[in-house]
């Protein structure tokens, strides 16, 4: 039984769907960050698989850049979250409606 590219793409789809469900149903912003990490990781799996099956290193390069972007996103996002928590004492998404038109 040979594991092909399609297996990895299907796995990536399943992980991406799980992450999207998390993004849509979570209310706590910290939990929302967890779901975005799942999204980024599922795409990384697809990149690495395509890179392997086509003998090309570009996919792995982009996976590196995605990891770098994820790390900086966590740093900035947690900083903003700390500021919001200091000021309002909760991090629920439904309370962040100050920009409602």
């Amino acid at each position, binding site marked *: *039984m040979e*594991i092909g*590219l399609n297996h*990895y*793409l*299907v*796995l*990536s*789809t*399943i*992980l*991406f*769907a*799980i*992450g999207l*469900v*998390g993004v*849509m*149903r*979570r*209310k*706590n912003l*910290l*939990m929302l960050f*967890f*779901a975005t*990490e*799942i999204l980024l*990781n599922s795409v*990384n*799996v697809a990149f*690495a698989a*395509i*890179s*392997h099956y*086509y*003998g*090309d*290193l*570009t996919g*792995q*390069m982009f*996976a*590196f*850049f995605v*990891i*770098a*972007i*994820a*790390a*900086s996103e966590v*740093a*900035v996002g*947690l*900083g*903003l*979250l*700390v*500021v919001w928590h200091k000021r309002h004492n909760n991090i629920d998404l*439904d309370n962040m409606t100050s920009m409602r038109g």
Partner: protein
Amino acid sequence: MFEAIAFYLFAFLTIAMFYITVTTSQALYALSALAAGMIFISAFFFILGADFLGAIQIVVYSGAVMALYAFGMMFFDTTRDVKEKQGNKFIVVGLSVISAVLVVAIFSAPILGDNITALYPMIEGAGNTQEVGLVLFTKYLVPFEVAAVMLLVAMVAGIVLAGKKMDASLTLMSENDIRLMREEKNKKVLS
């Protein structure tokens, strides 16, 4: 054969861990399951021969990102249960599946059209780390530098955002000063 066994085992484990992450109501369970899922994801990279990427995945996610999230969970009040949005479940699941299938279509469209050619083919006889170094520091040098600058900007932003009022050290101040500072802070919050 062993590749297939490893793939299915780690696929099952990863999906289970990420499912726990998005469905549990305890923040601590979500964090632990996410860390475990990240480790299992790195197994796919090792199976695919991307050794360096797998090592980076473990170091960055399980080391740096999880430490940051653990810090965040100590800072926020995570002992209470996380409240969920009460929405239509079918809409949520349906939209997620449609978007995920769209992502796969985006990935597989050039493959089906036979439009992919290897831009930087792998070099015979070189290890994965060596290949990555060769490509990263020749063809992708400028994006690499831009990513470095972006990480620096993120670090400065993190310090500026989270480090306010951290110049006052609680261990070096006298009890009286601490009490005065707390009262002043309470006044600001109430006003």
